[in-house]
């Protein structure tokens, strides 16, 4: 028991943590570049998912058309898409002999963005649809009855559902910043080109560099926390307003 405690204490030793975070992570240009690339790829993927998911989720929630519930089921299933399956699908599409091989996108950041959009768009769409369906359905009639155009009505409904919509955005970002399978398969984890935080963690772990992998893991958690903290701050400010 005493031995275990000593191990834990030595593991959490401030000097060791400092050495991991300080010398190997914070002061390392490569880590800075990986972090920036991770944020850039996942940020763009989340933004594109929002551009797809917000209108798609709104149509699914507000319009009635044949096949709507089937489409909604597809989107809801897509919310749980395994990233490796997405990676496999995108890799097959972008592979040099694949249908989009001529675009030369395999093992590029763009390929990772494409895969991450496929992962995050159903999350944003599904949660947008759920957020809008949670509103009183008569509110649509009320807004149209007050003279709102269809677009004005949708904008007001988005405003009414802004708290769950921001949660949808956070969920979309969380899904892509933390995924590793798709990024590895379509990005190839190429140093200075497609290496992101999650793929770097896998690489360092496979090399036995647990201290660096742990440091990168902490960095990933901190970044995810900071982004979600900012979004939560906006969300709660919107609630007060």
């Amino acid at each position, binding site marked *: 028991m005493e031995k275990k405690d000593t191990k834990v204490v030595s593991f959490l030793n401030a000097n060791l943590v400092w050495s991991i975070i300080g010398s190997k992570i914070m002061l390392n240009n490569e880590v800075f570049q990986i972090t920036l690339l991770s944020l850039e790829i996942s940020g763009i993927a989340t933004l594109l998912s929002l551009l797809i998911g917000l209108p798609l989720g709104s149509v699914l929630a507000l319009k009635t058309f044949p096949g709507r519930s089937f489409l909604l089921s597809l989107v809801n299933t897509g919310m749980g898409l395994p990233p490796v399956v997405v990676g496999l699908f995108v890799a097959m599409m972008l592979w040099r002999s694949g249908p989009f091989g001529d675009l030369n996108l395999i093992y590029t950041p763009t390929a990772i963005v494409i895969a991450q959009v496929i992962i995050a768009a159903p999350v944003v769409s599904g949660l947008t649809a759920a957020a809008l369906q949670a509103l009183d359905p*008569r509110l649509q*009639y009320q807004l149209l009855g*007050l003279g709102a*155009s269809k677009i004005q009505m949708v904008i007001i409904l988005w405003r009414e559902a802004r708290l769950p919509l921001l949660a949808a955005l956070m969920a979309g970002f969380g899904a892509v910043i933390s995924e590793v399978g798709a990024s590895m398969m379509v990005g190839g984890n190429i140093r200075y080109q497609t290496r992101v935080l999650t793929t770097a963690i896998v690489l360092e772990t496979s090399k036995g560099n647990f201290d660096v992998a742990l440091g990168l893991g902490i960095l990933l958690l901190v970044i995810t926390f900071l982004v979600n903290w900012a979004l939560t701050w906006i969300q709660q400010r919107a609630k007060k307003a």
Partner: protein
Amino acid sequence: MKETSSPLLEMHNVLVKRGKKPVLFVNELALYAGEVLAVVGPNGAGKSTLLLTLARLIQPTQGKILYKNVPMDEWDDLSYRRQMSIVFQEPLLVDGTVMDNIILGLRLRGISKKEAVKAMQPWLEKLNLSEIAKRKVSQLSGGEAHRVSLARALVLEPQLLLLDEPFSALDPPSRLRLLDDLAGLLNHNHRTTLFVTHHLKEAARLGDRVAVLLDGVVRQVGTMDEIERHPLDNAVTNFVASEI
């Protein structure tokens, strides 16, 4: 009586179905400019369907609706709806203050905030809302929220006002108070109004004429006196008797 004026709205042989099931049939119904037509019937009779059809929020399966002598389908949705306003059973306010809600319809029509606030002032006074104009809607009582909903509709000065049991969710004293206020406002403005209710007394209190709607069919239209003295059939007789 208002029938000497031209009808603002006419319905001829209108059938509305939900799925394959007919939910409303109106053989002939006219709403004359300046009159208050109260549509009365029990719950589930098709009153709200009638109102939603007139607001063009539900499409009829067959028949003809004329607004200002022009067939409904020749009107552009938006320009038609911007001549009317609706008050539903629930206030259905949006997040924000009382003022934000009252000026919402005006703002949707592209009117500047300054102009909209100016137009709102008389209605704040008429509906006793001046003191709570800046209050958040989440802090309102049920009665206050309904007043805001009414002010939001009236500030638009609509050519057609559609009221769907607007105070039925309130307790009886609040409902009676608001009905009195509404009756005063409607008498003063002579605004063409279709008022839906399941209380015959409310219909008699507010309506210049009353339309009895039973099982999805408009059975009889006339003054309250005519309906009480000369009910058209047994169904109307039974409904009137059950309400007295």
